[in-house]
Each structure stands twice: as C-alpha cells, then as structure tokens.
C-alpha cells in the first residue's frame, strides 16, 4: 500500500492550506448560527412588527406628543444625533428605516385646517416605509375628521378621541402553520454553506495529489516499480476517497456541533446523506479539474474560481429565493444548485413518507449523476492524454 500511504503523506504535508478553509467554515457557521438563533423566536399569537424610526420634533404640543405616543405601537424609537452624516449613516446601515421630522408650526396649521406635512426621510419604496406611512396617514386623517367636524375642539380633546379610536382594532386570529418555521433555519444555512469549503478543500487536496502523481519523472519511476498499474490506480483512487471522506467527516462534525440544537431531528439524517452524496460529486469535480490543470498555481486558481462560482450562483452564500430566475436556471446545470435545493426541501420536511421524500431523492440522484459524469469525463481525458 505504498501509493495509498504516499497519498496520505502528501495530504498531511499540505494540511495548512486545507485548514484555512476549515477555519473559514467554522467562523462563518458560528457567526451565522448565532445570528439566526436570535431570529428563532416563534409565537402563536399575533404580534405587530415594529419599525425602527428616528423622531425629531421642532415643536412640543399635545397633538404631537399624542402622535408620538401612538406611533410607539408600530415603531421603536432610536436615538441618533440630529446631524446629516449621522442620519445618513443610520439610514444606510438600516439602524432606522425612516426619519420623521415635525416642522415648526405644524400643530397650529393643522388645527386651523390648513394643509401641512411631516417631513420623512426613508429608504425609498421599502415595505417598512409603507407600514409607517399607513400609520401616519390614519392618525392625521382621523384627526382631520374631528378638526373639520367639531368646531373649537382643543388639542387635548382631540388626542383623547384619537386614543379611544385607535384602541379599536380588528380581532386577529393566528392559524397554526403546519410547517415548522425557523427552527432548521440556522442548520440549513450552515449546511448550504458547507458546499463551499467542501468543494475548495477537496479540489485543492486532490489537485495537489494529482499534480504530484502526474509529474512526468515520478510517473516513469512509478511505472517501473514492481507494482501493477491497476494496483497503483486502485490505491490512488482509495487514497482520494479516504481523503474526501475525512474532509467531509471533519466538516460535518463541526457543522453539527455548531447546530447541536437540531441534531436529533430526523431531518438531520437526510441532511447528512445529502452532504455525503455531494462530497462524492465534489470528488468527481476535483478529479476532473486535477486532470485539466498542470501547475500548482492553476490548481489554486481553478479551486477558487470553481468553488466561489458554483457557490455564488446556486444559492450557497445568498439564499436561492433571492437569486434571479435566469441565474438559477443557469445554476441548475451545476450540482451545487441541487444540493442546496435538496437541503432547503429537507429543512422544511415534517413528514417522512416516500411521497414527501421523493423530490429530495430525485435531487440526490441528480447530484450522483453529476458526480458520475465528472468521473467519466476525467477518465476520458486521462485516456486521451495517455494515448498522446
């Protein structure tokens, strides 16, 4: 088993490069799981969503104070200094979704029935904006009804009426969603992200191995050794598979450790199966790339371009729902797309019947098909190269 041992030794020597990807993976998954853990609160009663708002008023009147008090039902007030750059920054980083300013003389004009407006700076066309707009619109339009139809109404009276009116709300019923919502969300993200380091590590590792074995002198030396070429090939393939398996296992353990909360659900079993199938496909891709490249620099370049490219277009970094349909169509010609799709379907599964699992199994078969295609293509290239 000299060849097999050599494979493992070469990989061991290159461990630093491969470790970088594993470290990146750990950092990102821990970051992501901590972020999504916060979003996991799920409740059975309806809670209106609040929007972050910066509120500035150039006047202090009962009407505006009443408005501010009611606005608190739909808004969280954020304190930011009233300076252009600070306001622009707050808006850019989404610290606030809009900035409302009450100009001086607003109340007086409003009570006189004149046309007045609040100033609002916001992220154009955002949904949160619509939410706040609706509120402002309903508050002042309701107030206007009183001002126009009750002569001599005071601000205090007006605010009192409005308070009563605004307490009349529709009854809200929450129906239970059958789907489990966000509980698998963080696991799903980590598992999707899994595709990137797995591809990088396997392409880099296999590429390095193949470079060394394809070296002309070394090849000639190996060919004259008293070991049959079949045995050399078999040991080489075994070495590659062991490497693929180990990389997959190490990263899988990290991934599961980061998402230990969900580890005991049946979904996890299918996630693991999916990642294993994908690891096989990665091994095919790397075998293919290894056959096409002839220098260490080329392997690094190919590993980066292939892993980043496949990951970007198929929804590894950015969720598939946010990617344009034409990009996704192109992505469906890559295995990563099917891997991510299978993961997304698995995360939403609650029933594990054959019917429910059918789309997942189909995706798995497609990934295996890609893997086999890459292996066959590489063998064809090898054959062509030997004939040259």
């Amino acid at each position, binding site marked *: 088993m000299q060849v097999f041992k050599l494979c493992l030794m070469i990989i061991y020597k290159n461990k630093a490069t491969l470790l970088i990807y594993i470290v990146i993976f750990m950092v*990102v998954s821990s*970051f992501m799981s901590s*972020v999504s853990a916060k979003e996991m609160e799920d*409740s059975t009663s*309806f*809670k*209106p*969503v609040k929007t972050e708002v910066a509120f500035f008023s150039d006047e202090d009147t009962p009407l505006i104070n009443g408005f501010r008090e009611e606005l608190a039902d*739909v808004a969280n007030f954020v304190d930011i200094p009233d300076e*252009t*750059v600070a306001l*622009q920054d707050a*808006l*850019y*980083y989404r610290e606030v979704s809009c900035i409302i300013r009450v100009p001086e003389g607003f109340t007086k004009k409003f009570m006189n029935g004149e046309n007045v*407006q*609040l*100033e*609002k*700076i916001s*992220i154009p066309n*955002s*949904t949160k904006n*619509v*939410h706040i*707009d*609706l*509120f402002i619109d*309903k508050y002042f*339009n*309701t107030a*206007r*009804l009183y001002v126009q*139809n*009750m002569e001599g109404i005071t601000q205090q009276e007006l605010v009192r009426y409005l308070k009563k*009116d*605004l307490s*009349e*709300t*529709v*009854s*809200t*019923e*929450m*129906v*239970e*969603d*059958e789907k489990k*919502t966000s509980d698998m969300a963080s696991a799903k993200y980590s598992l999707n992200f899994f595709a990137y380091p797995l591809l990088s590590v396997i392409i880099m590792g296999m590429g390095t191995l193949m470079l060394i074995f394809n070296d002309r002198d070394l090849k000639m030396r190996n060919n004259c050794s008293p070991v049959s070429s079949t045995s050399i090939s078999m040991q080489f393939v075994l070495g590659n598979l062991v490497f693929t398996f180990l990389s997959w296992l190490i990263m899988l353990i990290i991934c599961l450790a980061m998402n230990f909360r969900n580890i005991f659900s049946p979904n996890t079993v299918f996630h693991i199966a999916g990642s294993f199938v994908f690891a096989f496909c990665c091994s095919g891709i790397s075998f293919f790339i290894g056959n096409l490249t002839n220098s260490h*620099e080329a392997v690094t*370049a190919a590993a980066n371009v292939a892993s*980043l490219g496949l990951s*970007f*277009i198929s929804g590894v*970094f*950015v969720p598939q729902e*946010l*990617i*344009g349909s034409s*990009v996704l169509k192109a992505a469906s010609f890559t295995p990563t797309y099917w891997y991510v799709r299978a993961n997304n379907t698995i995360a939403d599964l609650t029933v594990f019947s054959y019917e429910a699992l059918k789309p997942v199994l189909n995706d798995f078969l497609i990934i295996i098909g890609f893997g086999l295609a890459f292996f066959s293509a590489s063998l064809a290239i090898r054959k062509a190269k030997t004939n040259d």
Partner: protein
Amino acid sequence: MFIHVFAYRMKILLHHRETIFWTMFFPLILATFFNMALSNLGSTEKFSPIDIAVVDNEQYRQNANLRLTLAEVSEGDDRLFNLSVVSAEEADKMLKNNKIDGYIVAERPIKLVVNKSGLNQSIIKSFADNYMHTVSATENILARDPSKIQNHISSIEDRVNYIRDVSSSGAEPNTVLAYFYSLLAMACLYGGFIGVREISDIQADISPVAARVNIAPVHKLKTFLYSSMASVTIHIAEMMILLAYLIFVLKVDFGTKTALVLLTTVIGSIAGFSFGSFISAVTKKSEGFKVAVLLSITMACCFLAGMMSQDVKYIILKNAPALLYVNPANLLTDAFFSLYYYDTYTKFLTNITILTGFIVVFCTVTYLIIRRRKYASI
C-alpha cells in the same frame, strides 16, 4: 536606462500569468459572481403589493364602504394589495399554501386571519384598523352633532397626504453597492502581489532575477524605482479595466464624481502596491510565504470592511470605530462610498488622507529595509 528597465519589467510582469490572473481576472470573475448573486438582494426590502383575500360573505356584500375602500387600495401601480374575493374555505386553503399573507372576514368587529407575525401581516392589520378607526370617529362625531353627517362623509372621502418625502442626499442608500466597492478595494490591495514580486526581484537571496540585477552596474534604487513604475502602471491599467467593467457592464453606480472615483482607484492601486512591497520587505522568507501573508491580511481586511457581510462592518462601526481607520480595505471602500452617498467631502478626504499616510509609511519602511543591502554570499 529608464526605458530599458521600464519596458523589460513590463514584459516580465505581463508574462507572469499567475500575477495577472490574481490581480485582474480574479476580481473580474468575482465581480461577475457578485452581480449574479446580489442583483436581487436590494429587492427584498422593496415593497410589492401584498396578496390578501376577503371572505365573500353576506356582511361583506352589504358593507359597501369596506368593499369600496378595499377596491381603492387594490388598484393601480402603487396599490397596497392584490385582492381576491373568495369563499371562507378557499381563503383558508390559500393561507395554508402561503398564496396569501392573510385574509379579512367582514364581521363586527372585522376579523383578520394570518399565519405568522410578519411585516406584511402588520400592514394588513394597520389597514383594517384604519377602517375601524374611521367608523369609531364617525360615531363620536355624529353623537355630538348628527347634522354633520353630510359634511363628515365628504371629509372621509378626501383623504389628505400628511407626509412629504425628503431625500437625505442625492443617492439611494443601496447596501448592495458597498459589496462592489469593497471588491474594488480588494482588487486594489491585490496590487500587493505585484509589490511582493517587485521586492523579491531585487533581493538577490530570493530570486535569480534579483541576483542578476544586483550585479548590473546601475544604481539599485534607480532600477527599483523604474521597475516599480512599470508595476504600478500595469496595476492601474488593470484597475481601470475592472472599474470600466463594473460601471459599463455590471452597471454599478459610482455616483457622479467620476474624476474623484478615478483618483481614488489610482491611490488605491498605489496603496496596494506599497502594501505588498512593505510585506515583502519585512518578511524575509520565500515568495510563497510572503504571498500567503499578504493574502491573509488582505482577506481579513476585506472581511472587516464588509465584503462578505455588511453586518460585520456595522458591528465594528458601533463597537470599535477606530478599527475602520487602520484598515486600508475599509478606507478605500469608504472613500468610494462617500463619493457616492454623501453630499460633503469630509469623510472622503479623511479616508484618502489616512490612506495616503499609509502609503508614505509603507514606502518609507520598505526603503529603509531594502537600501544598501549587500549580499556577501547567496
């Protein structure tokens, strides 16, 4: 002499495929991927009409007011809802299949059925509440003076807009752009690859080319200066290609201050080159090691500047803002961003001044290390 060194250095660099790949093609490829993956990101917070249903029961048919109000907000391009009028069973089914965000049942009081507490659901609720408030206000007003009925109806009908949208600056606070700016910053710092080569090629104990250059009867600093000029020229040309690709092909908005954007790119390119030279001069190991150091620092800088996630930059901005000013990738990203976003030049000037300071420091240290170096034996 200048032309000789300059021209040959150009030739050498242009023939070095690996360097050209990392400094030019890799950023171009990455920009293309960014464009594919991020082009829809901005649309997630954009408002699009909410799908709702209303149950077609007896009360709904009799409630002309509600029907009219719903019809009004479900028409036109800037409509609030995509409304379907369906039976109760159908509405239930639609909600279950996530075809709608919620449905309204015209009872007294009006009932809203949803399946989660989201922003869209809150908007539907806010709308339905509004209807209730008008009803309540009507009762209050008419209780006090029933003769106002006609007047009141006409007040309800002419709704007034109480909001005036004021723009904070000429530019939209588009977060996706920052990813491209930090990508351009990364590409500028990748000029460091050329810087590393430049220093390696004058250190006789590191490369054979350097050994040959060292025995030539030319002042070493002059050769270095000339060949550095060739390197910087190539990198600036690469950055201009990238910038053109971003602006004309990917349609990334850099704002209107084009001359300053070009200037920033040139300064960024020089900063990248001097940074690479600096790293190469202070680390006295093989070129592979120098590249690894350069790459890790560049990547860490880009990560902290928000290239992978804007949240990272925001966390730093809130907790350790000083860190933003010692990170060259961030200084560049912010410089591009300030040109696009702010009306004033204060932030831009601060960033560019600090970045220029970095260039001076890098160049001085590099000079102090490489000057007068002699090789007794290699």
